[in-house]
């Protein structure tokens, strides 16, 4: 019994962590049809900036997090202006932006490598201690991650449902042309979405690195998992993404316990393939009618 509570607790943390990075990807895909392959590098960048601000500059944790969010948001904006905006109108936008962001991700990752070196570093924003409930041991850091993630999701949901910006994002995602005709400045919405996604990447980078340590290429696997979550949920579906992230986090924690860490990713992938054969547009994705 205790084992399962433990698995539930760590699965929930994993899921919450995945959700934060997957939402960023889902938002960007939902509004621009852009798969941002530099998201992983942005996560690493956020983790390193927080680390640098706290250890080298001696700033408090909140300032470090804010700095990471602002800088990663700015980089996201720069990616929009430099790569996405010039080819928004091209026919193969989806393929081209995918390739371009692979290149941008490689640049960012190697800039991080040159600046901070290849040695793994511990993330300085890391709570010590743990809550012990019965025989179950839950680190405070995991609780912090869960609380922050829930807070972020509530905030994001309010932003999407209640604010002017959120309405503009949803309108653009539903129908770009109609939104444009209604006077939504689509270009501005895109820029805001990418900046927002950069900020979310920073937070999820800090979360991931607080558990596994900082490495220039640490973003690769979490990004791939976040993408898998988006695909299972149906690309671009924000709420479905959160639910899927939690479920897959729980499943991964369970698989790690039952089969060992080695096979958890493989099992995840197998599951995803089965789901996609059953529902090619994802669990919550609507079947698209393609006009020929």
């Amino acid at each position, binding site marked *: 019994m205790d084992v399962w509570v433990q698995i539930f607790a760590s699965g929930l943390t994993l899921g919450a962590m995945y959700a934060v990075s997957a939402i960023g990807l889902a938002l960007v895909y939902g509004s621009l049809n852009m*798969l941002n392959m530099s998201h992983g590098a942005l996560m690493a960048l956020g983790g390193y900036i927080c680390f640098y601000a706290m250890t080298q500059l001696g700033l408090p944790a909140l300032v470090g997090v804010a700095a990471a969010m602002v800088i990663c948001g700015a980089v996201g904006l720069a990616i929009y202006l430099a790569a996405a905006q010039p080819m928004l109108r091209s026919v193969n936008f989806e393929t081209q932006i995918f390739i371009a962001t*692979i290149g941008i991700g490689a*640049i960012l990752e*190697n800039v991080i490598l040159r600046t901070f070196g290849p040695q793994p570093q511990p993330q300085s924003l890391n709570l010590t201690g743990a809550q012990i409930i019965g025989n179950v041991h839950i680190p405070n850091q995991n609780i912090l991650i869960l609380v922050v993630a829930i807070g972020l999701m509530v905030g994001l949901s309010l932003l999407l449902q209640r604010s002017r910006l959120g309405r503009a994002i949803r309108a653009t995602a539903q129908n770009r042309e109609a939104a444009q005709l209604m006077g939504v400045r689509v270009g501005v919405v895109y820029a805001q979405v990418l900046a927002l996604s950069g900020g979310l990447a920073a937070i999820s980078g800090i979360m991931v690195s607080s558990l596994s340590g900082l490495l220039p290429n640490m973003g690769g696997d979490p990004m791939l998992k976040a*993408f898998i979550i988006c695909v299972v949920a149906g690309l671009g579906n924000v709420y479905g993404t959160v639910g899927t992230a939690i479920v897959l986090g729980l499943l991964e924690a369970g698989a790690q316990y039952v089969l060992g860490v080695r096979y958890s990713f493989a099992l995840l992938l197998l599951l995803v393939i089965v789901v996609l054969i059953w529902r090619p547009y994802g669990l919550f994705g609507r079947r698209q009618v393609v006009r020929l």
Partner: protein
Amino acid sequence: MTTLSGIKRDLLIGSVLTTLAIALPFLTGTRYVVTQTTLFFIWAIVVTQWNLVLGIGGIFSLAQMALFAVGAYATAMLGYYFHMPMVPAMLLAALATVLVSVLIGLACLRLRGPYVALLTLAVAQVLFLLITNDTDCFSNPESGCMPLFGGVRGFTRFGDLGFRAILKSKFYIGHYYVGLFLLVLATAFAIAIIRGPAGLAFQALRDNPGYAVSRGISKFKYQLWLFGLSAFFTGLAGAFYAVNFAAVGPIVFSISVLLFLLSMIVVGGIGTVWGPLLGAALLMLVDEAMREAGDWRDIGLGLILAGFVVLLPRGLAGLRLPSFRDRSFRR
């Protein structure tokens, strides 16, 4: 020039290039040039097949390096565990690659573009993790514990093509011609696909999908065929890579190699006949120039990749004068 039909022009360019390549070892005595050109042949094979998948079939596969690795690992393992001679091992490995690619294709090809890219990338990453995280000893040679798939170390000493015995210290020239032979075959296959019925089918599916489908052209079927067949040469290239370097390790999965090869296609021109070869040659030269730069290499590659996609999405092959442009591949 414009009066030449596509296939004749391809044959002309192909025979000129092949003649030049055959002459190269006689013109230069430098071993480095010959071995680097052999490496170019290997990458060029992968790139021509990847270009078929990506540019002609419209399958956004990122599993090409994983397929290459399947070919390389299968060759090494057949040699290492079963002491099989290398030529049949390479052929078997190429067939194994076809089998793996059909399995991947069956799982991925029902999906739309970006989904395919993500799933194939995930498949490659899972293979990489399964190989490198494997620490259980499958056998215990004198050199130490050996996992089934070689683990982080990979395989060495699994056999060679026998050129070392015949040509002594000049054995690399034998490898050079094997590489050239494979590249000529792979290019001929690519041209046959592009100019043949499959190429027409994909062009029809691109130009008017509704009409093409109603005339009985199944996108899934053609994509699966193309994905499976092109995997043969990709796997063969991997097998030759293993034999040429007499070593295979998880390095073939690295993002850096993937980036390098993808850049070749993008720089040369996605979906053109000769673009990927041009891109491969150019990037090998640029890479040579950046060798001194060390860490800057990947930054440079990233810049080239992103820069070309944004500024010149049709690649260098798209730069030709309008009258030379091959009509059948205007997208």
